[in-house]
């Protein structure tokens, strides 16, 4: 039973691209989840008995917050590649703070809805907003988890621009952009559909 999982450099690079593939596939399955929920929204809406209401205004402000967080993370990535240690760390922390802010403000948005009497149970139109934005928030919390790992790397490891570090950072960015774009899609969906 002599064996080793020897990895040549080439095999390791392939492993990176495997992780990227894997992440993209995971994103596809998450998209299917949201596609199903938003299709259910359309089907249910066309069946009638649908309460129309304005989205909480805080959702719009929040959209700016999450887009900003994508920009800060992307800038952090560029600074990392340029070897700007301080800037890279700062913007990553800033991204994390913006992420938390988004969560808090989503919560305030839900409170704004309940303040108008739009409880979860009132009408499926309101239920859908809670459920869909809630599941999106759960995905954002997953993104915050990956950011915590990325920050641990940024602050605990000796600063060095390597292929492996770049690759890890890329995975975080892909996921974070996904969560951001997903929110943009949901907002557009809620407003126009």
């Amino acid at each position: 039973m002599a064996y080793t999982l020897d990895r040549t450099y080439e095999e390791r690079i392939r492993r990176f691209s495997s992780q990227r593939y894997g992440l993209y596939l995971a994103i596809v399955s998450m998209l299917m989840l949201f596609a199903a929920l938003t299709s259910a929204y359309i089907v249910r809406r066309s069946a009638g008995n649908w309460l129309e209401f304005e989205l909480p205004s805080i959702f719009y402000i929040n959209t700016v917050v999450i887009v900003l967080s994508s920009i800060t993370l992307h800038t952090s990535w560029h600074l990392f590649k340029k070897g700007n240690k301080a800037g890279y760390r700062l913007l990553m922390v800033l991204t994390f703070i913006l992420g938390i802010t988004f969560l808090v403000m989503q919560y305030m948005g839900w409170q704004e809805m309940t303040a108008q009497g739009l409880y979860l149970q009132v009408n499926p139109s309101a239920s859908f907003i809670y459920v869909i934005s809630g599941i999106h928030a759960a995905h954002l919390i997953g993104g915050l988890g990956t950011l915590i790992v990325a920050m641990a790397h940024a602050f605990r490891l000796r600063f060095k621009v390597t292929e492996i570090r770049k690759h890890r950072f890329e995975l975080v960015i892909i996921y974070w952009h996904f969560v951001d774009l997903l929110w943009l899609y949901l907002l557009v969906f809620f407003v126009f559909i």
Partner: protein
Amino acid sequence: MASIDIIKQDELEHGHDDHHGHDDHDHHGDKYQSGFITHYIFSTDHKMISKQFLITGMFWAVIGALMSLVFRLQLGFPEENMLWLKPILGKWITVSDGIGTLAPDFYYALVTMHGTILVFFVLTAGLSGTFSNLLIPLQIGARDMASGFLNMLSYWFFFLAGTIMFASLFLSTGPFAGGWTAYPPLSALPQAMSGSGAGMTLWAVSLIFFVVSVLLGGMNYITTVLNLRTKGMTMWRLPLTIWAFLVTAILGLLSFPVLVSAIFLLIFDRSLGTSFFLSEIFIQGEALSNVGGSPILYQHLFWFLGHPEVYIIIVPAFGIVSEVMSVHARKPIFGYKAMVLSILAIAILAFIVWAHHMFMSGVNPFIANIFVLFTLIIAVPSAVKVFNWIATLWGGNIRFNTAMLFSIGFVSLFISGGLTGIFLGNSAIDIQLHDTYFVVAHFHIVMGIAAFFGMYAGVYHWFPRLYGRFMNETLGKIHFWGTMIGAYAIFWPMHYLGMAGVPRRYYKFGNFDAFAHFGDMNKFITIAAIIVFFLQVLMLINFFYSIFRGKKQTTLNPYDANTLEWTVPINAGHGNWSGEIPHVHRWAYDYSKGGRNIPQTEPLGDGEQDMGNDHH
């Protein structure tokens, strides 16, 4: 998810930056194989995970089959005393005057659990989980899956899902009993029936964990096939098994999240008082406040998974049968590219036919017509496959061993089960046939028994690859012929029941004069089911006996097959090949070419054309 893997690589990173050598830290794979627990339980080796899926699937198959025997006894012998089952079923056998009767509630629970277990735990996890894990790395030439860790998690999420479902069997209110499709309102209202409370909650939680398992597995399978093929293994040189597993994984990745969305909304309806699927319901004389929901919406979401799910079950069997048939007919598979394209066509069509499960649910008949059309089109790629299998056998130098017999039996079942699909795909005929035993017969033959035959073909064929020994051929042939005849004996008569309008899921038919004369037929079906069950026990005995005492595999490539899994040492460890991974120079089906079988590893001769990769 990815982050855990990344942290593990930290040590690699330092070795990598400090100098340009890469081999200093490469033995980190070994530490996962050091003890009993990491080798047999929390294994990251795809070969061990494959065995875990297979044996867990067998466990569930036995449970599911025993359940079917209990409800078959009820259907075949409704007046018989069931007191002897009381030690096992406890309060679900009610006793009056010393006569034991199966509780009707529990009859429904048995039917529901039989469906759930067989569809998800046995024919999804047990079939594609086993063979994707075993064959993908071995046949494409990879040391393991893209992520052994996620692969391990995939199995353990399946195990967790199974544990939760198993626990639900022992609830005092019983497991969920509203049918495996879990339609609301039975699934959405905890007070609807006894299994709708805690039983349904555990059903929903179990299925969510199950989907996590399928998705982790699927991501791995797709990534591995696309990214980790050995040198020379182009897509058009892949064995058909791998194509089948790839497409299966893609189907799962796209459809299972939709089931999750349905279950999420169901959980909200159950626990938080929303009305996604509920409207204007009176229950126990009391009007519920839920207004405006649509149970049909659930059906749309469910069948958007549910229909691809039947292909998730049958497509791996397509792949296994094609491969086994080609090896044992010692002929190239007929129409390799047509086989691949027909799998792809079936996969695409799988997503646009879901409403044929809902013809009688109040779907607009004009929309139903479109679904009829797409449904019937599936017959075309299916017929291509059947034609190619038969053409592969034609003039072949056939070894009639057990694996081959099961492959041929698969084709028989796929034809007879497929033909009844053409009946059911018509929305007009469905008015008579829906929810009758005709439907039961159709799907049991075409996706139940047929998929089992594919699985058996795979188990008998690749048993040496799993355990370095062979299963007993005599017992195998008894198993095959008994099951082949027995399965038809069970399901063929059901077509007649169904055409006569006998509805499925009924507890007994004593009160219906129209169905009274089918009593003997039901007896016959039940007796056949009992015999077939014991034949499967025989197969299990053969399986476990052969693990320890079977004839030893002495040569590396016992079937003289061309694919890469037979270049791996017998009882290979984690990493599969001890030396370099072999390179591939040709497609997988050069059987009897110039009088011999040429393995994929052999370079092309002068002027020789590669059948998989011809550019002409």
